[in-house]
Protein backbone atom coordinates (compact mmCIF):
# COMPACT_ATOMS: atom_id res chain seq x y z
CA UNK A 1 0.00 0.00 0.00
CA UNK A 2 2.74 2.37 0.98
CA UNK A 3 4.65 1.82 -2.21
CA UNK A 4 1.61 2.15 -4.42
CA UNK A 5 0.64 5.35 -2.71
CA UNK A 6 3.98 6.79 -3.60
CA UNK A 7 3.48 5.88 -7.21
CA UNK A 8 0.05 7.43 -7.20
CA UNK A 9 1.59 10.54 -5.82
CA UNK A 10 4.22 10.66 -8.51
CA UNK A 11 1.66 10.34 -11.18
CA UNK A 12 -0.73 12.80 -9.68
CA UNK A 13 2.06 15.31 -9.40
CA UNK A 14 1.93 15.39 -13.16
CA UNK A 15 -1.48 16.91 -13.15
CA UNK A 16 -0.97 19.37 -10.34
CA UNK A 17 1.89 21.14 -12.06
CA UNK A 18 -0.36 21.62 -15.07
CA UNK A 19 -0.70 25.08 -16.54
CA UNK A 20 1.85 26.49 -14.15
CA UNK A 21 3.87 27.82 -17.06
CA UNK A 22 4.10 27.70 -20.82
CA UNK A 23 6.50 25.01 -21.98
CA UNK A 24 6.99 26.34 -25.48
CA UNK A 25 7.30 29.99 -26.49
CA UNK A 26 5.90 31.55 -29.67
CA UNK A 27 8.99 30.61 -31.68
CA UNK A 28 8.67 26.94 -30.67
CA UNK A 29 11.56 27.14 -28.22
CA UNK A 30 11.39 25.08 -25.02
CA UNK A 31 12.17 26.18 -21.46
CA UNK A 32 15.80 25.11 -21.74
CA UNK A 33 16.22 26.72 -25.16
CA UNK A 34 15.80 23.52 -27.19
CA UNK A 35 13.80 23.10 -30.37
CA UNK A 36 10.97 20.56 -30.36
CA UNK A 37 13.05 17.84 -32.02
CA UNK A 38 16.27 18.56 -30.18
CA UNK A 39 18.00 16.32 -27.64
CA UNK A 40 19.50 17.54 -24.41
CA UNK A 41 23.30 17.55 -24.38
CA UNK A 42 24.48 13.97 -23.86
CA UNK A 43 27.79 13.03 -22.28
CA UNK A 44 28.93 9.41 -22.24
CA UNK A 45 31.95 7.72 -20.77
CA UNK A 46 32.87 4.04 -20.39
CA UNK A 47 35.13 2.21 -17.95
CA UNK A 48 34.44 4.49 -15.01
CA UNK A 49 34.20 1.88 -12.23
CA UNK A 50 37.45 -0.06 -11.80
CA UNK A 51 35.87 -2.96 -9.90
CA UNK A 52 33.12 -3.64 -12.42
CA UNK A 53 33.60 -5.86 -15.47
CA UNK A 54 32.02 -3.08 -17.48
CA UNK A 55 30.71 0.34 -16.60
CA UNK A 56 29.43 3.58 -18.04
CA UNK A 57 28.52 7.07 -16.92
CA UNK A 58 25.90 9.17 -18.61
CA UNK A 59 24.73 12.74 -18.40
CA UNK A 60 21.71 13.86 -20.35
CA UNK A 61 20.49 17.25 -19.29
CA UNK A 62 20.57 17.08 -15.52
CA UNK A 63 20.32 13.28 -15.49
CA UNK A 64 23.40 11.70 -13.99
CA UNK A 65 23.49 7.92 -14.24
CA UNK A 66 26.08 5.31 -13.40
CA UNK A 67 25.89 1.71 -14.61
CA UNK A 68 28.04 -1.22 -13.51
CA UNK A 69 27.98 -4.67 -15.12
CA UNK A 70 29.28 -7.86 -13.52
CA UNK A 71 29.52 -11.23 -15.22
CA UNK A 72 28.83 -13.55 -16.86
CA UNK A 73 29.29 -15.24 -13.50
CA UNK A 74 27.79 -18.09 -11.52
CA UNK A 75 24.08 -17.50 -11.12
CA UNK A 76 22.98 -16.85 -7.60
CA UNK A 77 20.62 -18.03 -6.13
CA UNK A 78 21.24 -21.15 -8.16
CA UNK A 79 17.62 -21.83 -9.07
CA UNK A 80 17.49 -18.75 -11.31
CA UNK A 81 20.05 -20.33 -13.65
CA UNK A 82 18.82 -21.49 -17.05
CA UNK A 83 20.20 -24.56 -18.77
CA UNK A 84 20.28 -23.02 -22.22
CA UNK A 85 21.22 -19.39 -21.65
CA UNK A 86 22.46 -16.69 -19.35
CA UNK A 87 20.00 -14.72 -17.24
CA UNK A 88 20.15 -10.96 -16.82
CA UNK A 89 19.67 -9.56 -13.33
CA UNK A 90 18.85 -5.92 -13.68
CA UNK A 91 18.33 -3.38 -10.95
CA UNK A 92 17.16 0.14 -11.66
CA UNK A 93 17.61 2.16 -8.51
CA UNK A 94 17.26 5.81 -7.62
CA UNK A 95 19.59 7.34 -5.07
CA UNK A 96 17.70 8.91 -2.13
CA UNK A 97 19.15 12.30 -3.07
CA UNK A 98 18.36 12.04 -6.79
CA UNK A 99 15.01 13.81 -6.61
CA UNK A 100 13.58 16.91 -4.86
CA UNK A 101 11.91 15.02 -2.04
CA UNK A 102 14.12 12.29 -0.54
CA UNK A 103 13.28 8.92 -2.02
CA UNK A 104 13.35 5.92 0.26
CA UNK A 105 16.16 3.59 -0.85
CA UNK A 106 13.80 0.60 -0.68
CA UNK A 107 12.62 -0.41 -4.17
CA UNK A 108 9.26 1.12 -5.09
CA UNK A 109 6.77 -0.58 -7.39
CA UNK A 110 7.93 1.78 -10.11
CA UNK A 111 11.52 0.60 -9.61
CA UNK A 112 10.42 -3.05 -9.83
CA UNK A 113 8.58 -2.42 -13.09
CA UNK A 114 11.40 -0.40 -14.61
CA UNK A 115 13.99 -3.03 -13.68
CA UNK A 116 11.87 -5.55 -15.56
CA UNK A 117 11.25 -3.51 -18.72
CA UNK A 118 14.89 -2.39 -18.87
CA UNK A 119 16.02 -5.99 -18.59
CA UNK A 120 13.66 -6.91 -21.42
CA UNK A 121 14.98 -4.01 -23.47
CA UNK A 122 18.58 -5.24 -23.13
CA UNK A 123 17.99 -9.00 -23.52
CA UNK A 124 17.30 -8.99 -27.27
CA UNK A 125 20.76 -7.49 -27.87
CA UNK A 126 22.79 -10.02 -25.93
CA UNK A 127 23.90 -13.45 -27.15
CA UNK A 128 22.56 -15.04 -23.97
CA UNK A 129 22.91 -18.53 -25.42
CA UNK A 130 26.72 -18.19 -25.32
CA UNK A 131 26.77 -18.34 -21.52
CA UNK A 132 24.36 -21.00 -20.24
CA UNK A 133 23.83 -21.31 -16.47
CA UNK A 134 25.37 -17.91 -15.77
CA UNK A 135 24.06 -14.54 -14.68
CA UNK A 136 24.93 -11.09 -15.96
CA UNK A 137 24.24 -8.37 -13.44
CA UNK A 138 23.34 -4.88 -14.57
CA UNK A 139 23.18 -2.26 -11.82
CA UNK A 140 21.75 1.10 -12.82
CA UNK A 141 22.07 3.88 -10.27
CA UNK A 142 20.23 7.13 -10.91
CA UNK A 143 22.36 9.71 -9.11
CA UNK A 144 20.28 12.62 -10.30
CA UNK A 145 16.95 12.40 -12.10
CA UNK A 146 15.67 14.88 -14.67
CA UNK A 147 13.07 12.96 -16.67
CA UNK A 148 13.71 10.11 -19.07
CA UNK A 149 15.84 8.14 -16.64
CA UNK A 150 14.71 4.72 -17.87
CA UNK A 151 15.85 5.59 -21.38
CA UNK A 152 19.10 7.13 -20.24
CA UNK A 153 19.64 4.09 -18.02
CA UNK A 154 19.26 1.76 -21.02
CA UNK A 155 21.65 3.85 -23.14
CA UNK A 156 24.25 3.69 -20.39
CA UNK A 157 23.62 0.01 -19.58
CA UNK A 158 24.20 -1.03 -23.20
CA UNK A 159 27.52 0.80 -23.12
CA UNK A 160 28.50 -0.86 -19.86
CA UNK A 161 27.62 -4.30 -21.32
CA UNK A 162 29.77 -3.57 -24.37
CA UNK A 163 32.52 -2.33 -22.08
CA UNK A 164 32.33 -5.66 -20.22
CA UNK A 165 33.05 -7.40 -23.52
CA UNK A 166 29.71 -9.20 -23.63
CA UNK A 167 28.88 -10.19 -27.22
CA UNK A 168 25.94 -8.20 -28.52
CA UNK A 169 23.93 -8.04 -31.74
CA UNK A 170 23.87 -4.26 -31.53
CA UNK A 171 23.99 -1.51 -28.95
CA UNK A 172 20.63 -0.69 -27.43
CA UNK A 173 19.87 3.01 -27.31
CA UNK A 174 16.81 4.65 -25.82
CA UNK A 175 15.07 7.98 -25.99
CA UNK A 176 11.59 9.26 -25.27
CA UNK A 177 9.28 11.45 -27.29
CA UNK A 178 6.10 12.89 -25.93
CA UNK A 179 3.49 15.57 -26.08
CA UNK A 180 3.38 18.73 -24.03
CA UNK A 181 1.61 22.02 -24.62
CA UNK A 182 -0.19 20.28 -27.48
CA UNK A 183 3.01 19.63 -29.44
CA UNK A 184 5.06 16.50 -29.99
CA UNK A 185 8.59 16.86 -28.68
CA UNK A 186 11.76 14.86 -28.25
CA UNK A 187 13.55 13.90 -25.02
CA UNK A 188 11.26 15.35 -22.38
CA UNK A 189 12.91 16.78 -19.31
CA UNK A 190 11.35 16.52 -15.86
CA UNK A 191 9.01 19.53 -16.06
CA UNK A 192 7.83 18.63 -19.56
CA UNK A 193 7.18 15.05 -18.51
CA UNK A 194 5.23 16.05 -15.41
CA UNK A 195 3.11 18.72 -17.07
CA UNK A 196 2.88 17.06 -20.46
CA UNK A 197 0.08 15.08 -22.01
CA UNK A 198 1.98 11.94 -22.96
CA UNK A 199 5.34 10.22 -22.76
CA UNK A 200 6.55 7.48 -25.13
CA UNK A 201 9.88 5.92 -24.13
CA UNK A 202 11.45 3.83 -26.90
CA UNK A 203 14.53 1.60 -26.89
CA UNK A 204 15.95 0.71 -30.26
CA UNK A 205 18.66 -1.36 -31.95
CA UNK A 206 19.45 0.72 -35.07
CA UNK A 207 21.23 -2.01 -37.04
CA UNK A 208 18.36 -4.45 -36.61
CA UNK A 209 15.54 -1.90 -36.82
CA UNK A 210 14.24 -3.46 -33.60
CA UNK A 211 12.21 -1.77 -30.89
CA UNK A 212 13.04 -3.45 -27.59
CA UNK A 213 11.24 -1.17 -25.14
CA UNK A 214 8.00 0.63 -25.73
CA UNK A 215 5.77 2.16 -23.14
CA UNK A 216 3.31 4.99 -23.12
CA UNK A 217 1.16 6.86 -20.72
CA UNK A 218 -1.05 9.81 -21.39
CA UNK A 219 -3.37 10.48 -24.27
CA UNK A 220 -2.43 10.29 -27.95
CA UNK A 221 -4.26 9.51 -31.17
CA UNK A 222 -2.88 6.65 -33.24
CA UNK A 223 -1.33 9.15 -35.72
CA UNK A 224 0.32 11.18 -32.97
CA UNK A 225 1.63 7.99 -31.42
CA UNK A 226 3.22 6.83 -34.66
CA UNK A 227 4.84 10.24 -35.16
CA UNK A 228 6.13 10.13 -31.60
CA UNK A 229 7.78 6.75 -32.24
CA UNK A 230 9.46 8.08 -35.39
CA UNK A 231 10.70 11.10 -33.49
CA UNK A 232 12.04 8.94 -30.67
CA UNK A 233 13.81 6.66 -33.16
CA UNK A 234 15.51 9.69 -34.74
CA UNK A 235 16.67 10.71 -31.28
CA UNK A 236 17.93 7.18 -30.65
CA UNK A 237 19.99 7.29 -33.83
CA UNK A 238 21.67 10.51 -32.74
CA UNK A 239 22.58 9.06 -29.33
CA UNK A 240 23.74 5.83 -31.01
CA UNK A 241 26.48 7.77 -32.79
CA UNK A 242 27.60 9.19 -29.43
CA UNK A 243 27.60 5.70 -27.88
CA UNK A 244 29.94 4.36 -30.53
CA UNK A 245 32.14 7.42 -30.13
CA UNK A 246 32.36 6.84 -26.36
CA UNK A 247 33.35 3.19 -26.82
CA UNK A 248 36.05 4.07 -29.33
CA UNK A 249 37.38 6.82 -27.12
CA UNK A 250 38.28 4.32 -24.40
CA UNK A 251 40.57 2.42 -26.76
CA UNK A 252 42.04 5.56 -28.24
CA UNK A 253 42.86 6.70 -24.71
CA UNK A 254 44.44 3.31 -23.92
CA UNK A 255 46.44 3.42 -27.15
CA UNK A 256 47.71 6.92 -26.38
CA UNK A 257 48.71 5.88 -22.87
CA UNK A 258 50.73 3.01 -24.32
CA UNK A 259 52.57 5.28 -26.71
CA UNK A 260 53.63 7.70 -24.02
Amino acid at each position, binding site marked *: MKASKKKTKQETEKKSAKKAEKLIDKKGVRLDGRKLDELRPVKLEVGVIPNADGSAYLEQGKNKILVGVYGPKEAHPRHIARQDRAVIQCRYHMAPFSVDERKSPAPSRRDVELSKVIREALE*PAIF*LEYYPKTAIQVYIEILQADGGTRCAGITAAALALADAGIPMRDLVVACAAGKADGKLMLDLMDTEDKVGEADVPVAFMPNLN*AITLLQMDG*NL*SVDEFENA*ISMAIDGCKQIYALQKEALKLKYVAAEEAKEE
Partner: protein
Amino acid sequence: MNSPIVVRIKKKRIVELLANGKRVDEREPTEYRKIELDSGVIERAEGSARVRLGKTDVMVGVKIATGTPFSDVPNKGVLTVNAELVPLASPYFEPGPPGENAVELARVVDRGIRESKAIDLEKLCVEPGKLVFVVFVDVYILNHDGNLIDASTMAALAALVNTKMFKYEVEDGKIVKKPGYTPLPIVNYPISVTFAKIGDKLVLDTGLDEEEVMDARLTMTMDKDGKICAIQKGGGSGYFTKEEISEAAKIALKKTEELRKIVVKG
Protein backbone atom coordinates in the same frame (compact mmCIF):
# COMPACT_ATOMS: atom_id res chain seq x y z
CA MET B 1 8.59 -24.05 -16.27
CA ASN B 2 9.11 -26.59 -19.02
CA SER B 3 12.60 -27.65 -20.01
CA PRO B 4 14.19 -25.63 -22.83
CA ILE B 5 13.87 -28.57 -25.22
CA VAL B 6 10.14 -28.96 -24.69
CA VAL B 7 9.72 -25.23 -25.23
CA ARG B 8 11.72 -25.40 -28.45
CA ILE B 9 9.61 -28.26 -29.82
CA LYS B 10 6.44 -26.47 -28.82
CA LYS B 11 7.59 -23.27 -30.45
CA LYS B 12 8.45 -25.03 -33.69
CA ARG B 13 4.93 -26.46 -33.87
CA ILE B 14 3.21 -23.18 -33.00
CA VAL B 15 5.28 -21.23 -35.55
CA GLU B 16 4.53 -23.83 -38.24
CA LEU B 17 0.83 -23.56 -37.56
CA LEU B 18 0.91 -19.75 -37.56
CA ALA B 19 2.67 -19.74 -40.94
CA ASN B 20 -0.61 -21.19 -42.23
CA GLY B 21 -2.68 -18.75 -40.20
CA LYS B 22 -3.64 -21.38 -37.61
CA ARG B 23 -3.34 -21.55 -33.86
CA VAL B 24 -3.07 -24.45 -31.42
CA ASP B 25 -6.69 -24.06 -30.38
CA GLU B 26 -7.88 -23.32 -33.94
CA ARG B 27 -8.61 -19.64 -33.32
CA GLU B 28 -7.96 -16.84 -35.79
CA PRO B 29 -4.85 -14.75 -34.99
CA THR B 30 -6.94 -11.83 -33.66
CA GLU B 31 -9.74 -13.91 -32.18
CA TYR B 32 -10.34 -13.85 -28.43
CA ARG B 33 -11.32 -16.89 -26.44
CA LYS B 34 -14.84 -17.02 -25.04
CA ILE B 35 -15.39 -14.15 -22.63
CA GLU B 36 -17.69 -14.67 -19.68
CA LEU B 37 -18.37 -11.74 -17.44
CA ASP B 38 -20.21 -11.65 -14.14
CA SER B 39 -20.66 -8.44 -12.20
CA GLY B 40 -21.41 -8.00 -8.54
CA VAL B 41 -20.09 -11.39 -7.50
CA ILE B 42 -18.91 -10.31 -4.05
CA GLU B 43 -21.60 -8.70 -1.93
CA ARG B 44 -19.22 -7.31 0.67
CA ALA B 45 -17.27 -5.36 -1.94
CA GLU B 46 -18.58 -2.03 -3.19
CA GLY B 47 -17.92 -3.30 -6.70
CA SER B 48 -16.78 -6.58 -8.17
CA ALA B 49 -16.55 -8.57 -11.36
CA ARG B 50 -15.23 -11.88 -12.56
CA VAL B 51 -13.96 -12.39 -16.07
CA ARG B 52 -13.25 -15.76 -17.63
CA LEU B 53 -11.22 -15.62 -20.78
CA GLY B 54 -11.13 -19.23 -21.87
CA LYS B 55 -9.65 -20.91 -18.81
CA THR B 56 -8.08 -17.71 -17.49
CA ASP B 57 -10.08 -16.55 -14.52
CA VAL B 58 -9.76 -13.15 -12.88
CA MET B 59 -11.75 -11.59 -10.09
CA VAL B 60 -11.59 -7.91 -9.23
CA GLY B 61 -12.96 -6.40 -6.06
CA VAL B 62 -13.35 -2.69 -5.46
CA LYS B 63 -13.34 -1.38 -1.92
CA ILE B 64 -13.92 2.24 -1.00
CA ALA B 65 -12.37 3.80 2.06
CA THR B 66 -11.78 7.32 3.26
CA GLY B 67 -8.39 8.88 3.51
CA THR B 68 -6.42 12.05 3.06
CA PRO B 69 -5.64 13.34 -0.42
CA PHE B 70 -2.10 13.93 -1.66
CA SER B 71 -1.02 17.43 -0.78
CA ASP B 72 -0.39 18.33 -4.42
CA VAL B 73 -3.89 17.33 -5.55
CA PRO B 74 -5.98 18.21 -2.51
CA ASN B 75 -9.27 18.11 -4.42
CA LYS B 76 -9.04 14.58 -5.84
CA GLY B 77 -9.79 11.12 -4.57
CA VAL B 78 -7.13 8.44 -4.66
CA LEU B 79 -6.92 5.39 -6.91
CA THR B 80 -4.86 2.35 -5.91
CA VAL B 81 -4.51 -0.80 -7.99
CA ASN B 82 -2.97 -3.96 -6.64
CA ALA B 83 -2.64 -7.41 -8.22
CA GLU B 84 -2.19 -10.78 -6.58
CA LEU B 85 -1.02 -13.84 -8.47
CA VAL B 86 -2.77 -16.16 -6.06
CA PRO B 87 -0.81 -19.43 -5.53
CA LEU B 88 -3.85 -21.60 -6.19
CA ALA B 89 -4.04 -20.22 -9.75
CA SER B 90 -0.93 -21.82 -11.19
CA PRO B 91 1.87 -24.22 -10.24
CA TYR B 92 4.25 -21.35 -11.06
CA PHE B 93 2.75 -18.86 -8.59
CA GLU B 94 4.23 -18.86 -5.12
CA PRO B 95 3.12 -17.26 -1.86
CA GLY B 96 4.90 -14.09 -0.83
CA PRO B 97 4.94 -10.40 -1.60
CA PRO B 98 4.09 -9.40 -5.20
CA GLY B 99 6.90 -10.21 -7.62
CA GLU B 100 7.75 -8.22 -10.73
CA ASN B 101 5.04 -9.88 -12.83
CA ALA B 102 2.34 -8.95 -10.32
CA VAL B 103 3.70 -5.43 -9.98
CA GLU B 104 3.80 -4.97 -13.74
CA LEU B 105 0.27 -6.32 -14.13
CA ALA B 106 -1.06 -3.94 -11.47
CA ARG B 107 0.74 -0.97 -12.95
CA VAL B 108 -0.47 -1.64 -16.49
CA VAL B 109 -4.07 -1.94 -15.28
CA ASP B 110 -3.58 1.19 -13.16
CA ARG B 111 -2.14 3.17 -16.08
CA GLY B 112 -5.14 2.40 -18.27
CA ILE B 113 -7.64 3.57 -15.65
CA ARG B 114 -5.58 6.58 -14.56
CA GLU B 115 -4.46 7.93 -17.93
CA SER B 116 -7.89 7.58 -19.53
CA LYS B 117 -9.27 9.41 -16.48
CA ALA B 118 -11.88 6.67 -16.20
CA ILE B 119 -12.87 7.74 -12.68
CA ASP B 120 -13.83 11.35 -12.08
CA LEU B 121 -11.61 11.63 -9.01
CA GLU B 122 -12.68 15.21 -8.27
CA LYS B 123 -16.13 13.90 -7.42
CA LEU B 124 -14.51 11.74 -4.73
CA CYS B 125 -13.35 14.72 -2.72
CA VAL B 126 -15.27 15.33 0.50
CA GLU B 127 -13.24 18.14 2.01
CA PRO B 128 -10.33 19.50 -0.05
CA GLY B 129 -6.95 18.74 1.51
CA LYS B 130 -8.51 16.78 4.33
CA LEU B 131 -10.92 14.07 3.39
CA VAL B 132 -11.37 12.12 0.16
CA PHE B 133 -12.47 8.67 -0.92
CA VAL B 134 -9.84 6.08 -1.77
CA VAL B 135 -10.73 3.52 -4.45
CA PHE B 136 -8.91 0.22 -3.95
CA VAL B 137 -8.96 -1.99 -7.03
CA ASP B 138 -7.70 -5.46 -6.15
CA VAL B 139 -7.01 -7.81 -9.03
CA TYR B 140 -7.12 -11.45 -8.02
CA ILE B 141 -5.89 -14.07 -10.47
CA LEU B 142 -7.79 -17.31 -9.85
CA ASN B 143 -6.59 -19.37 -12.80
CA HIS B 144 -3.74 -18.54 -15.14
CA ASP B 145 -4.13 -19.66 -18.71
CA GLY B 146 -2.53 -16.70 -20.41
CA ASN B 147 -3.37 -13.07 -21.21
CA LEU B 148 -3.77 -11.95 -17.62
CA ILE B 149 -3.47 -8.28 -18.61
CA ASP B 150 -6.54 -8.12 -20.85
CA ALA B 151 -8.62 -10.26 -18.51
CA SER B 152 -7.60 -8.01 -15.61
CA THR B 153 -8.33 -4.70 -17.37
CA MET B 154 -11.73 -5.99 -18.43
CA ALA B 155 -12.54 -7.25 -14.94
CA ALA B 156 -11.28 -4.03 -13.35
CA LEU B 157 -13.41 -1.87 -15.64
CA ALA B 158 -16.47 -4.06 -15.13
CA ALA B 159 -15.96 -3.93 -11.37
CA LEU B 160 -15.64 -0.12 -11.40
CA VAL B 161 -18.78 0.24 -13.51
CA ASN B 162 -20.49 -2.04 -11.02
CA THR B 163 -19.29 -0.08 -7.97
CA LYS B 164 -21.85 1.52 -5.70
CA MET B 165 -20.94 4.24 -3.27
CA PHE B 166 -22.97 4.65 -0.14
CA LYS B 167 -24.73 7.98 0.26
CA TYR B 168 -23.35 10.15 3.00
CA GLU B 169 -23.48 13.47 4.74
CA VAL B 170 -20.65 15.34 6.37
CA GLU B 171 -21.17 16.17 10.03
CA ASP B 172 -18.36 17.83 12.02
CA GLY B 173 -15.83 16.85 9.37
CA LYS B 174 -16.87 13.22 9.59
CA ILE B 175 -18.72 11.09 7.08
CA VAL B 176 -22.06 9.76 8.21
CA LYS B 177 -23.53 6.99 6.07
CA LYS B 178 -27.06 7.47 4.82
CA PRO B 179 -29.34 4.86 3.30
CA GLY B 180 -29.06 4.28 -0.44
CA TYR B 181 -26.30 4.14 -3.00
CA THR B 182 -24.95 6.10 -5.94
CA PRO B 183 -22.77 4.72 -8.75
CA LEU B 184 -19.05 5.53 -8.83
CA PRO B 185 -18.49 8.43 -11.30
CA ILE B 186 -17.07 6.51 -14.28
CA VAL B 187 -16.51 8.74 -17.31
CA ASN B 188 -14.23 6.70 -19.57
CA TYR B 189 -13.85 3.03 -20.48
CA PRO B 190 -10.26 1.90 -21.06
CA ILE B 191 -9.81 -1.49 -22.72
CA SER B 192 -6.50 -3.21 -23.39
CA VAL B 193 -5.51 -5.64 -26.09
CA THR B 194 -2.32 -7.63 -25.76
CA PHE B 195 -0.39 -8.89 -28.76
CA ALA B 196 2.17 -11.63 -28.69
CA LYS B 197 4.85 -11.82 -31.33
CA ILE B 198 5.62 -15.42 -32.17
CA GLY B 199 8.16 -15.81 -34.93
CA ASP B 200 7.15 -12.95 -37.21
CA LYS B 201 3.42 -13.16 -36.53
CA LEU B 202 1.22 -11.16 -34.19
CA VAL B 203 -1.55 -12.90 -32.30
CA LEU B 204 -4.06 -11.68 -29.73
CA ASP B 205 -5.21 -13.24 -26.48
CA THR B 206 -2.49 -15.81 -26.01
CA GLY B 207 -3.04 -19.04 -24.15
CA LEU B 208 -0.38 -20.35 -21.80
CA ASP B 209 1.27 -22.49 -24.51
CA GLU B 210 1.65 -19.49 -26.77
CA GLU B 211 2.86 -17.28 -23.95
CA GLU B 212 5.58 -19.77 -23.12
CA VAL B 213 7.04 -19.55 -26.62
CA MET B 214 6.33 -15.91 -27.52
CA ASP B 215 9.22 -13.62 -28.44
CA ALA B 216 7.68 -10.44 -27.07
CA ARG B 217 4.43 -8.96 -25.85
CA LEU B 218 2.76 -5.62 -26.55
CA THR B 219 -0.22 -4.21 -24.69
CA MET B 220 -2.17 -1.24 -26.01
CA THR B 221 -4.89 0.35 -23.91
CA MET B 222 -7.37 2.62 -25.64
CA ASP B 223 -10.11 4.84 -24.30
CA LYS B 224 -13.67 5.20 -25.56
CA ASP B 225 -12.60 7.75 -28.19
CA GLY B 226 -9.99 5.45 -29.68
CA LYS B 227 -7.11 7.40 -28.15
CA ILE B 228 -4.16 5.41 -26.85
CA CYS B 229 -3.78 5.89 -23.11
CA ALA B 230 -1.21 3.25 -22.16
CA ILE B 231 1.30 0.96 -23.84
CA GLN B 232 3.56 -1.68 -22.39
CA LYS B 233 6.01 -3.88 -24.21
CA GLY B 234 7.27 -6.87 -22.29
CA GLY B 235 7.38 -10.59 -21.99
CA GLY B 236 10.54 -12.10 -23.35
CA SER B 237 13.71 -11.31 -25.17
CA GLY B 238 12.24 -10.35 -28.51
CA TYR B 239 11.49 -7.05 -30.19
CA PHE B 240 9.02 -5.30 -32.48
CA THR B 241 9.62 -3.33 -35.64
CA LYS B 242 7.92 0.01 -36.17
CA GLU B 243 5.78 -1.55 -38.92
CA GLU B 244 4.54 -4.25 -36.54
CA ILE B 245 3.63 -1.62 -33.98
CA SER B 246 1.66 0.38 -36.57
CA GLU B 247 -0.17 -2.77 -37.59
CA ALA B 248 -0.92 -3.55 -33.94
CA ALA B 249 -2.32 -0.04 -33.37
CA LYS B 250 -4.74 -0.47 -36.27
CA ILE B 251 -5.97 -3.84 -34.98
CA ALA B 252 -6.17 -2.48 -31.43
CA LEU B 253 -8.45 0.36 -32.52
CA LYS B 254 -11.05 -2.11 -33.83
CA LYS B 255 -10.60 -4.77 -31.20
CA THR B 256 -10.85 -2.51 -28.15
CA GLU B 257 -14.16 -1.21 -29.47
CA GLU B 258 -15.47 -4.77 -29.86
CA LEU B 259 -14.38 -5.77 -26.36
CA ARG B 260 -15.76 -2.59 -24.81
CA LYS B 261 -19.22 -3.55 -25.99
CA ILE B 262 -18.93 -6.82 -24.11
CA VAL B 263 -17.63 -5.28 -20.88
CA VAL B 264 -19.79 -2.15 -20.77
CA LYS B 265 -23.30 -3.07 -21.71
CA GLY B 266 -25.80 -0.51 -22.90
